[in-house]
């Protein structure tokens, strides 16, 4: 029991420190403004360069879901609703989670490793010695770039995921693309789209905050950078799963509550 208590204490402590880090970054960003040139530069590095990977991952996520759901629906002769179900699942649950997992490796690990290397090679201290705050000049542009890029990439990934489902249904499952698309509005409400967008934003924030925090606080040379990247990866993956469950439950609860309210 003792190790469970210690593990829980460490997790809560780390989450608290990450939240404080996010608050400080927000505070600096609001008070001192964001270095626009640096933000654009970082968005190119972490966002634009991750686009091909996101397109591939997103397309295959949609295709996999369409194939898997088709297997279940075929037994009940309900393939007509494949388009609606596959798209709904892609947007609300599986799509954001799988694409966020991919981005945590592509964008998050890169950022944690870069900031960690800067920390252990005295680059952060050198910036401090120039009378500048590394949070303002180094961290905030990267944090904002990771959040915005992750959100945009998730949304693009979801759209490509839907397209992947359509293409695979037409080419492999012999389901007419028009029929597939026609079923989408019946199963995908604005609420579903909103839930998917909210998850994408929250996952983007999680990837940005955890990876920047772990990189910024790395210590102990190359081994310390490795440790920081590993911790960032584990924490992001676990948090994404936990938050996916939490946000899905919250979305269902709010949806039901608002419908009852309307009645």
């Amino acid at each position, binding site marked *: 029991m003792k190790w469970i208590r210690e593990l829980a204490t460490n997790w809560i402590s780390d989450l608290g420190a990450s939240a404080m880090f996010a608050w400080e970054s927000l505070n600096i960003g609001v008070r001192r403004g964001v270095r626009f040139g640096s933000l654009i530069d970082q968005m190119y590095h972490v966002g634009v360069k991750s686009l091909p990977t996101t397109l591939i991952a997103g397309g295959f996520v949609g295709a996999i879901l369409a194939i898997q759901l088709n297997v279940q629906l075929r037994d009940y002769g309900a393939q007509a609703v494949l388009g609606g179900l596959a798209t709904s699942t892609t947007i609300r649950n599986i799509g954001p989670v799988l694409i966020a997992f991919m981005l945590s490796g592509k964008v998050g690990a890169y950022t944690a490793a870069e900031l960690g290397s800067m920390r252990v090679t005295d680059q952060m201290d*050198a*910036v401090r010695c120039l009378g500048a*705050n590394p949070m303002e000049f180094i961290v905030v542009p990267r944090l904002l770039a990771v959040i915005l890029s992750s959100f945009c990439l998730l949304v693009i990934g979801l759209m490509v995921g839907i397209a992947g489902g359509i293409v695979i249904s037409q080419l492999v499952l012999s389901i007419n693309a028009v029929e597939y698309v026609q079923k989408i509005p019946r199963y995908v409400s604005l609420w579903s789209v909103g839930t998917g967008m909210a998850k994408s934003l929250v996952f983007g924030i999680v990837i940005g905050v955890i990876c920047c925090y772990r990189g910024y606080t790395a210590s102990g040379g190359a081994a310390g950078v490795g440790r920081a990247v590993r911790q960032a990866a584990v924490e992001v993956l676990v948090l994404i799963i936990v938050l996916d469950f939490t946000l899905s439950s919250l979305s269902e609860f709010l949806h039901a509550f608002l419908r009852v309210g309307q009645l």
Partner: protein
Amino acid sequence: MSHIRLENLRKSFGPKRVLDGLSLEVRSGEIVFVIGKSGTGKSVLLKHIVGLMQPDAGEIYFEGEPLCGKAESEWYRIRRQCGMVFQHPALLDSLSVLENVAFGLRAHRLAKSESELREAVAAKLAAVNLGADIMDRFPPELSFAVQKRVSLARTLAIAPDVLLFDEPTTAQDPVATRAINELIHRLSRTLGVSSLVVSHDMHCALAIADRIVMLDGGKAVAQGSPQEMLESKHPLVAGFMKEAKERLFEVD
């Protein structure tokens, strides 16, 4: 007037006491070399002056203002006046040489236009014996010695009143070493910039120092002008000076 004054500074890392009641003064425009065996706390001393480390006890004064216990936000003003050149270049790998040297100029809005900024960067690079042709290159493309000189140019760009050097001439060729020594000397004599230099290079110390301080066991065990140190009977100082004189003899 003293630019920097350390009083009874103490610092331990676990059971190891690195600074043990160190007191030291750097007066305005003075060049002070701190010498000593490896691991005697010379770099730790510099990090205390710019607030990268906090002492366990003692006080640090910058132009009469006590620094210990200051919040991080207050340190930025001090560091703007008290530039430090690290032992390792610590250049930002993702930025070009131009952007590295211009970092402080941009952060403190010291240049009115891009052309003025490029001119200022070129001038600082020239001061450390580097050409403007390396401006668009990135740190990993440069040798360690060139990176160190770019790092020195970056610190010079913010025009600090005091310069702290951690082994500035390590890995430099003789021409660059001479240029750096002349630069430190010129900054001191023409602009009144004080310099505190941590170094193992006794030739540089004897050539340009106003005062040399020998550190041992976390304390200043001897100090004086280069001539006084050359004549010192202190066994550790005598050992350092003997080695320097022998190497001088070999070269001659």
